[in-house]
């Protein structure tokens, strides 16, 4: 997509103005001039975030019909519904940048845009539902709370709404795990098994190490991002360790220990090969997640077409009646 407005003698002045606004913690709004790179970075990041919400419905949706109590069923259904809502808020933010949601959906199902790799892991037991709430939503919150101050107004506003609901989600996850840990041996084993499978992928959610994340500096200068990947990852580990102790689960990392000097936890090396493999599409569920999304989209085409046709007919009727 080309934007013609950013060519011309005043671009330098516009850019200086833009930089001043951003540096002063001002907000950039949809019709403001913005550098094309800023716009592209935002579209990529917000779309990826929106796709993550929508694809993220699948691993949890996997357990709605089997939820073992009606209270859990209602919570899970409402949570997955919230995620559809979050996806919609975020797609709405991308629309303000001039991208159509239909176009982004096509890019998603054609594997031209990414979503968070965490959702390419399977949910194998009901404890996974609790662990997704606790660890995955927890990591998402660490990442997202700073985004409430993102320089782009529509994104920041969407994030405020989303973060409010995410904290409910995380609490329900933790509460579910506490209930299971207070339950039978089988339930406790289920929780530990789920923690063992989700811990490392949740650390990967913060993205590559800072040295391997070349876009980070620019995103931070633009105030799209507020902290580096490694800063957020460290914060997440430090917050999660005492919670794991409170729950009575073991985080599967023998190198995890408090470092008095750094006043932070040391932790083991992340398996970046696995990370890259999943990012490239070879994770346990990549194909399945995309196939499901594609099927829903394509199976819904006749419905969307019908509604469009009906609206056109009604518009004609209105005109002829007038």
């Amino acid at each position: 997509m080309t934007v013609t407005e950013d060519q011309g003698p005043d671009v330098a002045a516009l850019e200086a103005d833009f930089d001043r606004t951003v540096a002063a913690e001002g907000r950039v709004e949809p019709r403001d001039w913005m550098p094309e790179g800023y716009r592209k970075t935002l579209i990529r990041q917000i779309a990826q975030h929106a796709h993550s919400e929508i694809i993220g419905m699948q691993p949890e949706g996997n357990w709605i019909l089997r939820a073992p109590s009606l209270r859990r069923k209602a919570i899970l259904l409402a949570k997955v519904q919230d995620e559809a809502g979050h996806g919609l808020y975020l797609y709405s933010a991308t629309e303000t940048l001039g991208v159509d949601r239909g176009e982004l959906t096509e890019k998603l199902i054609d594997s031209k845009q990414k979503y968070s790799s965490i959702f390419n892991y399977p949910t194998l037991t009901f404890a996974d539902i609790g662990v997704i709430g606790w660890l995955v939503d927890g990591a998402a919150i660490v990442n997202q709370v700073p985004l409430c101050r993102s320089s782009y107004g529509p994104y920041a506003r969407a994030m405020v709404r989303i973060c409010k609901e995410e904290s409910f989600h995380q609490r329900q996850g933790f509460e579910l795990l506490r209930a299971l840990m207070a339950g039978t041996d089988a339930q406790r084993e289920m929780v530990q098994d789920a923690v063992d499978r989700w811990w490392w992928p949740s650390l990967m959610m913060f993205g590559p190490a800072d040295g391997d994340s070349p876009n980070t500096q620019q995103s931070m200068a633009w105030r799209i991002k507020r902290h580096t990947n490694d800063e957020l990852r460290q914060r997440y580990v430090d917050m999660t360790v005492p919670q794991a102790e409170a729950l009575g689960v073991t985080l599967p990392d023998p190198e995890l220990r408090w470092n008095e000097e750094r006043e932070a936890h040391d932790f083991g090396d992340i398996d970046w090969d696995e990370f890259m493999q999943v990012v490239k599409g070879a994770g346990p569920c990549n194909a399945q997640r995309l196939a499901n999304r594609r099927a829903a989209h394509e199976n819904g085409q006749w419905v969307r077409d019908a509604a469009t046709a009906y609206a056109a007919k009604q518009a004609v009727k209105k005109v002829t009646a007038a």
Partner: protein
Amino acid sequence: MSMADDTTAHVEGEPRFDGTPKAVWPLYEVFVRGKRGLNHVHVGSLHAPDDTMALHNARNLYTRRNEGVSIWVVRGDAITASSPDEKDPFFAPSGDKVYRHPTFYDIPDNVPHL
């Protein structure tokens, strides 16, 4: 739940969308008055085939069917917007749209590389 992990750090540029979108519902902007005594406030947008469904969808999405909330929906292409910065001449041609980027203009299908 979810987040944007920085997995595209190594992906070059934005791949250009080359598919043909089929019937896509128009965009509606949504304004909500949370309670009496307040103004309607813009809360976001959604897609719907027509006004009636736009209201249904807005109620579901932005108010979660909270009763007593007043909602306005208006098609995005029906809004005329001011330029953010009157001294800037670049905005003159697009000063009539809410968002000023390319896909908000009807482009005939047979025009390449627009």
